[in-house]
C-alpha cells in the first residue's frame, strides 16, 4: 500500500487537475459582471447554491 504521503500527493494532484479541467471546460468568467464583494448591504439577493435548497 502506498504511504500516506503518496496518497496525500495523489489526492492533491487529482483535486488540482479537476480544477484545471473545470476551468478549461466551463464558460469563461465574465469579470465585468462580478458579484458584489460583500453581499450584505449590496441590494442583491444571494443566488448561490446551498444544500438546504429543495430544487
Amino acid at each position, binding site marked *: 500500500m502506498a504511504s500516506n504521503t503518496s496518497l496525500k500527493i495523489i489526492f492533491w494532484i487529482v483535486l488540482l487537475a479537476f480544477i484545471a479541467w473545470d*476551468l478549461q471546460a466551463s464558460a469563461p468568467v465574465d469579470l465585468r459582471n462580478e458579484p458584489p464583494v*460583500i453581499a*450584505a448591504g449590496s441590494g442583491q439577493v444571494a443566488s448561490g*447554491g*446551498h*444544500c*438546504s435548497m429543495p*430544487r
Partner: protein
Amino acid sequence: MAAFFIFLIWSISTRQALLFLVGIGMGMALAGFRFGFTTGWRQLIEDRDPRGVAGQVLLLGLGALLAIPLMAQFPELKAALGPPSVSLILGAFVFGLTMQIADGCGSGTLYKAGMGIPLNAGILPLFALGSFLGSVHLHHFLALGQTEPIGLLETTGTAGALGITLLLLAISVGLVRLWVGAGRAWLDARWIKGAIVLAVLATLNLLLAGQPWGVVYGFGLWAAKGVTAAGLFDPSTNPFWSQAGNAERLGQTVLLDVTSITNIGILAGALWVASRGASETAKPLTGQQWLIGLLAGFIMGYSSRLAFGCNVGAMLSGITTGSLHGWLWVPAAFAGTLIGVRVRRRYGF
C-alpha cells in the same frame, strides 16, 4: 495558497478570493482545534463526555446571536431554509448513522482529507458522487411528503427567533445534563476556541456570500459536472439540475460557486495545519474496514442531500439562521448516530 488567492482575485472575483480565505480559516479551525461534530456526538454517547457537544451548542448559540440580527438588518442575506419533510427525517437519520462509520461528517471529511487521513481522502470522491445521486433522486423523496420551509425570523421576528433558538439550545443542554449526570467537565479550551472562531467565520461567510456556510452542495456540483461532461447524465431531464440556478452553475467554473470555494479553502487550511506538524493519527485499516468506510461515505453523501445538509448546512446553518429544518435534523441524525456508533464498534473502527 497565496498564489491561488491572487489568481482568484485576478481571474474569478474578489468575493470568491475572500471566501477562499474564510474557508482556509475554517479548515485551520476544524483541524487545529480538532472540532469534529461526529467525535463530539460519539464521546457524548460512549463516554458520557459532554465537552464536544457543549462546544457545538456554544457555536450554535454564538452563530445565532450573530446571524439572526444581521439577517434582520440586511434583507439580502438568505437563511438555510430546508423543507420539513419525510426526506429530511430519513436522510438525517441515515446521515447520522453513516457519519459515525465514516468518522466524519461533511466538514469532518473535508478537513481530515486535507490533513491526509487516507480513509477520508478516499471517501471524498464517493461522498461527492453520493451527494450528486441524492440530488438527482431528491424529487422522489420529496414526493413522500413535505411542507414549505419555515423560518423563525419571518414568523416570529428577530427577538422571537433568537428567543426560541436559545431556549431550544438550553433544553438541549438540559437533556445532555440528564444523560451525563453530575460531576462532569463541560468546558474544554479546544472546543470553546473552535466554537468562537467557527462562529465568526460562519458569520463572515454569511456577510460575504449572502448565504450561510454549506458543504454538501459543492460536492454534488463537482460530481454533476464530471458525469455531465462524460455524457452519462442529461441535466435537462432532471427536476433538480434543470432548475435555472443549478443549470447555470453546471455551466460555470466551480470556482464561482460559493460552497465549492469554501470547501477548497477548508482542504487547504487543513493541509496547512498538517504541514505544521499537527498530523492526525489514523490506524491502518483492514480491507473490510476500507470497504465499509467507503460505502458509508457514499451513503453519507446521498443521504446528506435528502436531509438538506450535513452538520454544517442543516444543523449549524439551519439553526443559526432560524430554520425549523435544522431543529428537525438534529434529533433524526442523533437517532441514526446511536446506531452508527454500535456499527462502528462492531467493525472495529
